[in-house]
């Protein structure tokens, strides 16, 4: 081992391909789908689905590594780069349009939950659908009106009906990304599911929390509302109401009995260690779009950024742009380290949250500054910059707010429990 920053070939190749996709399938439609919230960019969804199927899968998620066959020694053993690759793809797609990226078919957070908390049987049963003919979605529903950052406060209940051996779920989930496409039956899409978090024992606190796979079309479940948002408008954000919704016994992810442990909850948190740097990567894609746009526009006006000067000799714009570049790159490197650790099976809770803290901060500041620099052009809806400003802000909110991730980082460095630092 030694320190290295050479982009692996497979990553460079996929970035190249996705840049073309971003330019031709995303940027060209960005504005239209921002102005027409809740319309669905079928062309992008179809295209991505077919593209991912043609390379042997139905989602962006890393493929499971096949164990090396004996006698395969000649083949050089390369270190795994699945999550590094995924982060790079997400960054590039979000550079195209983060709202579109969020509705890339293939399971998203819902599939990630099954992947990390489900049994082999469950993985086989629930994940096969994403590589079938129609684009298919899955979502993850944790948040409730009364429980956002404090996930332990969820009220949704799951009770086992001993007679029928079904789980009966009651509650209401809000802010479910892709909830509509995952749950509602669309002719163009395959049958999806929503992973719903509920308590099987409210007296047990976090130890009683479990995730349930709720299939599209389940009786008693309705899409109660679609939110109207500041940004990422191509991505639907749904309220899902569950009234005596019945799901099969085997749809519970993890153990159906409550021990005095918090393994169920830890399952959710382990998923976040993987997904936080990916959310950070997504925000960074948006910010990179903004920085590049500003530099291009300035260059067109004959304004060059002179690197290497002491601050005393720079123009204010040079200071701003250089600051943006420093922040953007250093944030990206934190992401890269966090996913590199994930690929190499190193515990990365600290680095994951660090990358999210940093990205949440810098992508909002960068896009805010970019709009300021471009003046009226930045503020106008004729260009995409103002949209990127609105889109970027979500980075600091979902998948753990900036504050929650600061708490995670602080607890890690201080060696504090959640009780010692609330």
């Amino acid at each position, binding site marked *: 081992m030694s320190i290295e920053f050479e982009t*692996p070939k497979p990553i460079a190749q996929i970035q190249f391909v996705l840049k073309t996709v971003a330019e031709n399938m995303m940027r060209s439609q960005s504005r239209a789908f921002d102005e027409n919230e809740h319309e669905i960019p079928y062309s992008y969804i179809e295209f991505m689905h077919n593209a991912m199927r043609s390379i042997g899968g139905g989602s962006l998620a890393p493929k499971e590594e096949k164990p090396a066959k004996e006698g395969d020694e000649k083949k050089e053993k390369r270190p795994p780069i699945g999550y590094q690759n995924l982060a790079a793809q997400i960054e590039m797609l979000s550079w195209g349009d983060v709202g579109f990226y969020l509705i890339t078919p293939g399971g998203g957070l819902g599939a990630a939950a099954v992947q990390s908390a489900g049994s082999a049987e469950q993985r086989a049963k629930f994940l096969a659908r994403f590589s079938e003919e129609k684009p298919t979605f899955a979502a993850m529903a944790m948040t409730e009106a009364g429980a956002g950052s404090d996930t332990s406060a969820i009220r949704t209940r799951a009770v086992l009906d001993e007679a029928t051996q079904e789980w009966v779920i009651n509650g209401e989930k809000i802010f479910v990304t892709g909830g509509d496409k995952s749950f509602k039956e669309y002719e163009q899409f395959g049958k999806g599911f929503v992973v719903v978090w509920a308590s099987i024992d409210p007296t047990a606190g976090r130890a009683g929390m479990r995730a349930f796979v709720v299939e599209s079309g389940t009786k008693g479940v309705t899409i109660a509302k679609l939110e109207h948002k500041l940004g990422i408008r191509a991505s639907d954000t749904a309220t899902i109401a569950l009234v005596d919704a019945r799901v099969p016994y085997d749809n519970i992810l993890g153990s159906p009995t409550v021990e005095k442990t918090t393994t169920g909850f830890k399952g959710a948190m382990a998923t976040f260690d993987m997904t936080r740097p990916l959310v950070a990567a997504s925000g960074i894609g948006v910010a990179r779009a903004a920085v590049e746009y500003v530099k291009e526009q300035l260059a067109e006006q004959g304004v060059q950024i002179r690197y290497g000067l002491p*601050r005393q000799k720079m123009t204010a714009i040079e200071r701003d742009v250089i600051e943006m570049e420093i922040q953007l790159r250093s944030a990206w490197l934190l992401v890269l380290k966090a996913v590199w650790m994930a690929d190499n099976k190193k515990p990365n809770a600290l680095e994951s949250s660090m990358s999210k803290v*940093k990205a949440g901060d810098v992508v909002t500041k960068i896009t805010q500054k970019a709009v300021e620099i471009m003046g009226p052009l930045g503020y106008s809806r004729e260009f995409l910059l103002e949209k990127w400003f609105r889109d970027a802000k979500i980075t600091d909110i979902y998948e753990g707010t900036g504050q929650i991730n600061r708490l995670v980082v*602080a607890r890690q460095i201080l060696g504090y429990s959640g009780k010692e*630092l609330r």
Partner: protein
Amino acid sequence: MYSFEPSEEQQMLMDAVGKYAQNDLRAAAHDAEESRELPKKLISKGWEIGLLQASIPEAYGGFGDRSAVTGALAMEEFAFGDLAGTLAVMTPSLFATPILLAGSEEQKQEYLPKIIEGDWAPYTAALIEYAYDFDPNDLRTTAKADGGDYILSGEKAFVPFAKDAEAILVYANLDGKTQGFIVPKDAAGLSVSDEREKLMSLNALPLYRVKLDSVKVSADNRLGDASGHDFELILASLRIASASAAVGVAKASFEYSMNYAKERDVFGVKVAQKQAIAFMLAEMATEIESIRLLIWEAAWKLDAGKEDAAKDAYLAVTGAADMVMMVTDRGVQILGGHGYIREHPVEMWLRNGRGFAMLTGLAIV
């Protein structure tokens, strides 16, 4: 491939430097700063770790190859102990490393073995000038060709160990380009201030003002061959060293203030349990790590000969200077009134921290 793990060799060097930095440099730092004196023995001990020696090939008396990444890793460990001590121990590198990077074969043969194989000796360099808008690419000190010689005129500031220096590598503006010139200690027209420079920090490091009053040096003393050298690579290496030292200082302040906050009782809890303090610490840790990675990438690019290495080194040192300011300021803040008192080192690190925006030129790896 991406990788964030130092090699075993690098780790061994980091451990050796780290041990010295914590046990020796840190222990001596307070008294050295107050008395304006670094014990000679302390410097020798640091020299014997062999950081510079390990970056010079055997042909010139060393035992390794230079790597900016290795240098960056070691510099952080070093400065975690104490900045002034680090700069003192590494002063000969200011002279030797540019010769290694850009010198002619004759210059390498003449200077490197004698510096590397000997005890620590004051070979130094003069880049910084006393001007608010000091710019290493636009120096006020000039070099003019004069037949086969060069005439150097101007004034240099903050030159470490200039008083006792065997030779000084002086950077000057030759037709708009920054070029290095080796000036022997007895050159006519070279004068070193009697008084040491007085700065906001680095009291333990003897720094001098150096005047060049039409100093004549032969063409052989121009760094590189007859057509000189590329300054960009040297400047990038100076910047990486400076940025890495900034990370070391920042980490020192971060760790000290974090440990303090875990011990300090306020309102019935440890002050680290208050989000106002805990969040500051989380941000400090995050900034240190992100800038560290920015430096590593720039250093790796420098080693790999990537085109944009110089630009990245510039971005890294610019980011590092802001980061260390933010972190060391908070280090003082977290200690409250005690942070303001010189018994605790955080106020010195704050003074160190402010220097990084203008001190590129005092370290190179």
